[in-house]
């Protein structure tokens, strides 16, 4: 899948984002207090770094320079963007529910989801694979390594 954005335009978008990041961090760093060079405040170093980042990003926009081969940005939309989005959202969901539902329950359903994301897949195989993997992780991490992974409302 292609996008209408050229690599150069994508680069300029990237540099602009870095400029915004630098301005944001620089502003908040200045509010922390810069102090003096003999008694630096907590914001001096971050403000200085943000300033340099801002300058470098501005220079890059004005004069991008050349990269080596294999260094061109790729503006194409990833073919598997739906799958990647699903994985990212599943990680978000995992982080949200692990402490309320417990490690074992969350891990089992999450693995079923991930195995089912790929084709070809069979629900039975996904359920079996998720169950075995969760059981191995339980033994390996909670029993052998004694990690304090969360237990859910059902005690597991």
């Amino acid at each position: 899948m292609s996008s209408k954005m050229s690599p150069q335009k994508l680069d300029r978008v990237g540099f602009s984002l870095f400029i915004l990041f630098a301005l944001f961090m620089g502003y908040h760093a200045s509010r922390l207090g810069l102090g003096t060079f003999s008694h630096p405040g907590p914001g001096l170093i971050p403000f200085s770094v943000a300033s340099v980042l801002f300058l470098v990003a501005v220079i890059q926009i004005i004069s991008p320079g050349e990269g080596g081969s294999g260094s061109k940005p790729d503006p194409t939309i990833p073919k598997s963007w739906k799958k990647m989005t699903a994985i990212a959202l599943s990680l978000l969901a995992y982080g949200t529910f692990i402490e309320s539902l417990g490690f074992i329950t969350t891990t089992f359903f999450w693995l079923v989801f991930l195995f089912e994301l790929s084709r070809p897949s069979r629900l039975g195989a996904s359920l079996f694979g998720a169950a075995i993997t969760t059981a191995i992780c339980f033994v390996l991490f909670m029993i052998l390594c004694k990690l304090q992974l969360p237990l859910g409302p059902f005690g597991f």
Partner: protein
Amino acid sequence: MEAITSLLYGFSVLLSVQNILFCFLGCALGTLIGVLPGIGPMGAMAILLPLTFKVPPVSVLILLGGIYYGAQYGGSTTAILVKIPGEASSIMTCLDGYEMARKGRAGPALGISAFASFIAGTLGVFGLMLFAIPLAQYALHFGPPEFFGIMVLGMSIVVILVRGSVGKGIMMALTGFMLSTVGQDIISGVPRFYFGLDSLADGFGIVPVAMGLFGVAEILNNIENPAPRETHGQKIRDLLPNKQDWRKATMPIFRGSVIGFLMGILPGGGPMISTFASYAMEKKVSREPERFGTGMIEGVAGPEAANNGASVGAFVPLFALGIPPNPTMAMLLGALIIHGLQPGPLLMAEHPEIFWGTVASMYLGNIVLLVLNLPLIGMWVRILKIPYRVLFPLILLFCVIGAYSMSYNASDVIIMMIFGVLGFLLQKMAYEPGPLILAFILGPLLEQSFHQSLTISQGSFLIFLTRPLTLVSLLAATLLLATSILLPKRRAVIAMEGS
């Protein structure tokens, strides 16, 4: 004589059931990671780090060090059999190693690769013992300005060696530094940039950031760009190289060992760059340079020796100066810090068991890796055939467990996810994550040394100009960055050699 006594002390530290087990485990995991696509030694170290909190620091270093140099061994297996480098340091091995496999000589290619790695690793450990101690003793005279200068020089070299533009490398390094300032200021204790979020009060953890950038991002990348993993169909036999193979490979192995070790010491050097240098050297000294790329055993032996030599050489600045020469070594530094140790030249004096225990483990580790890589080739080949749709959920699961168990905080999983997506997008925009993670880990040390320097000089920046080593380091850094930015053709050549 003192070195031998100390080495024996190191073996006494190593020869406990736990440490031997960790050595085996590190080597096995490192080989596995080198064989499998989708996760490198840094991601693996990040995953394992939280599991080692109750383990003594020397055992942690033995484990993580084993993963690091073990991955160099494992990466060559896929390079030779599938023409896909398991690790970036095996790229050059693909050229002649795969051609040897196509000609039915996969066995000797794998064999010479393993022996070259073993010889280079062993020689490298000798070098580590010889170089690290005098360097550490010299470094005892360094003050905060010297450390600041050396760290800036090291960062600059890493930045200019990125494959993309130097400007992007600089921006990534500065971003990494900015991210390291989130949380409590180490000098004043004032909380910075946490915006009322409790999860950011202590800053971003090394583990979620590293796992996001190098674990999750790599998985997303592999999903978008799946690599074909058809192994060469011929049965692998005759793993032991014959006399002719040894005759051709001996000098490349020794040259590669030296090149690799010396380049590993240099910031930004590392296994990958050393393999290019070694390959170029072998092609230059060969009587048949035109045959390189068609299955020359010298093209396998030299680079494989170089990458293992470099992986051991990288321990020299880490132990002697407390400065990691590359992002992967920065993870080891992070491990030391997490375990409450202050990296630097005093580490070897105050905790000799850590240095000598790690050195001793490398001798054992090289033997273990030779045993793991040759007889178990069949097993590694079978592992290569596991479909990625089965592998990636398992890798993600380990990433998640590692991120969560860092501080038993679910927000670390979310932070890892954010950095994973960010890392993927940054790679699409041709930004390399290496300078970011190195600056992120070195950031607090850099800030501290800068602060201390200004405190010593009462605010005068002249302190950076009046100390010879600091001045030389900063001038060299400025010169390197300036020439890299102003000479784009030279950059293009370096990048082409790197691709």
